[in-house]
């Protein structure tokens, strides 16, 4: 064949663009971080603080507290949670080979929600010693245990003879979600007014409770989980062709599935535990990136982490600014901004989205 002797030039490379996007998104993340430090309820501006740094003028007590105890932990938490949700979303979509999959599929959301409700409604019934020991961290700890536990349960149910069936996991997840919903319903029924209010706000998500303590507890788990997920790019690419073909291409499919599920449970579980229910980041961020530079998971996972962190930090700035000095739950902001984008994606791709 003549074809063999000709030289062929490859078409424009999306992969190269996706790698350049790492830098642009990193710059965007820095920009969003600066915005987050600049604006807030207190009249403390990053620009003014930087000016003081240059002239060597010491920061006032109030400025120190606002910067180091309020805005910086909040910024760090927004970045961690956003990155965790977006990377977990991209991982789940790769694992389930479906662009509409969400970290919630592995039962994290339902389990964490149930854990949080249990803690809020029944927390006061705990023996006093235990309550004092865990203190204010009772809700996050219970949410994390609920999310992690339900994922492990689903994983166990859908694994037979060393092979995990993602289809079984999907179906069992629906059943488990319904069960968790029913138990939550009973607890909501017996909850008093203050507890109902706490529950509602927990469900809407917020970064308002950010503290270095929470970041030091949840941060390492989120960072390790994200790092594990970032190693899955090659395997998830192969999985796009199905499990059998991925194995033929030399990918250890079962090990990859285990790592993916555990990393999603870890990252999302910890994120939901410290920030409550924040929707749409896990679906919209990977989707936007796939539209921009293709589905290659080696770059998609990194870009999702950067864009997820940036957008959640930005959403938090908006949540703080629109009704300042009060603030909106951030879940409302991500839903208000995320849902129209999601609908727009669906309309654009009408007829192509194939379940």
């Amino acid at each position, binding site marked *: *064949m003549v*074809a*063999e002797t*000709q030289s*062929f*030039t*490859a*078409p*424009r490379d*999306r*992969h190269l663009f996706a790698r350049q996007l790492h830098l642009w998104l990193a710059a965007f993340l820095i920009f969003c971080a600066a915005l987050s430090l600049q604006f807030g309820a207190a009249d403390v501006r990053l620009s003014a603080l930087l000016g003081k740094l240059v002239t060597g003028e010491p920061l006032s007590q109030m400025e120190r507290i606002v910067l180091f105890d309020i805005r910086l932990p909040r910024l760090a938490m927004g970045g961690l949670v956003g990155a965790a949700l977006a990377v977990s979303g991209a991982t789940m979509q790769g694992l389930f*080979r*479906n*662009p509409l999959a969400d970290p919630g599929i592995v039962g994290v959301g339902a389990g964490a929600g149930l854990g949080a409700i249990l803690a809020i409604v029944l927390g006061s019934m705990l023996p006093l010693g235990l309550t004092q020991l865990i203190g204010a961290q009772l809700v996050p700890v219970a949410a994390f245990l609920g999310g992690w536990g339900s994922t492990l349960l689903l994983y166990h149910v859908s694994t037979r003879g060393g092979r995990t069936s993602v289809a079984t996991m999907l179906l069992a997840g629906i059943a488990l979600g319904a069960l968790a919903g029913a138990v939550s319903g009973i607890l909501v029924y017996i909850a008093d007014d203050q507890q109902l209010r706490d529950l509602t706000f927990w469900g809407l998500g917020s970064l308002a409770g950010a503290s270095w303590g929470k970041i030091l507890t949840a941060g390492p788990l989120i960072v390790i989980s994200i790092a594990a997920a970032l190693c899955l790019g*090659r395997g998830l*690419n*192969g*999985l*796009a*062709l*199905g499990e*059998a*073909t991925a*194995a*033929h*291409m*030399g*990918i*250890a499919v079962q090990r990859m599935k285990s790592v993916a599920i555990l990393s999603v449970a870890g990252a999302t579980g910890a994120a939901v535990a410290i920030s409550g229910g924040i929707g749409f980041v896990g679906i919209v961020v990977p989707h936007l990136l*796939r539209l921009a530079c*293709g*589905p*290659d998971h080696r770059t998609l996972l990194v870009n999702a982490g950067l864009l997820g962190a940036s957008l959640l930090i930005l959403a938090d700035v908006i949540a703080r600014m629109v009704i300042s000095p009060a603030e909106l739950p951030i879940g409302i902001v991500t839903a208000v901004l995320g849902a129209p984008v999601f609908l727009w994606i669906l309309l654009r791709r009408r007829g*192509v989205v194939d379940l």
Partner: protein
Amino acid sequence: MTLEARSISVDYGKRRVLHGVTFMARPGAVTAIVGPNGSGKSTLLGAVSGDLPHEGTVSLGGRDVARMPIWQVAAQRAVLPQASRLAFDFTVLEVVRLGLQSGRSGDRADIPMRALARVGLAHYAARTFQELSGGEAQRVMLARVLAQVWEPVDQGEARWLLLDEPVSSLDIAHQLQVMQIARDFASAGGGVVAVMHDLNLTALFADEVTVLSEGEIIAAGTPGAVMTDAILSRAYGCALKVSTPPARNIPYILPHAAAS
């Protein structure tokens, strides 16, 4: 680097569909597996490629495949499935590049484009895989498989192509093209095992033919030895007439027109 599958049995539920068959293929040859629907052709290939749980052992060059690391197996043999579904909007070139992931690194960046050119689809490189026709998609998948084992012989060891009905959705020109690619791979020292439906194409391109019927091998050998009226009529359960034109010693098969 002989490929050997010894005493292979496969059960679907309680039904046994392969009854302890022993199958062998050598490098440098195209080995075709033929037989009627449900005779166990694809099941045999599935067991050989490791997709299906089975009894018996499969070995490459005397080494038990089940004991080899998965990446090493992938560097040694590539498998083309009957049909492929792809999630996400990968381009044609990106799909072929997936084949490169296994095996050793080095200066292999140009292999995907050359593999695409080999199946005559280099000009489709930038298209989205999802918009291809069935036949085009099958040829892109062949290019991906070729990219995985691009050199038929690697460090003195033959590599293998396992093809499950590689021409099933292709027109006649592309059937010939794909079979020629398999032929060339074998001529260069590699091994090819192909599940085939078309007996005439098999007679034209195969060096060895294994005939399966009801989960057992009823004949194996050269096309001339195996493709006889008696064996084929028995395997397929209908009257078939094999002729051999004297000019080229290649049999061709015609159905006995039952109506006439």
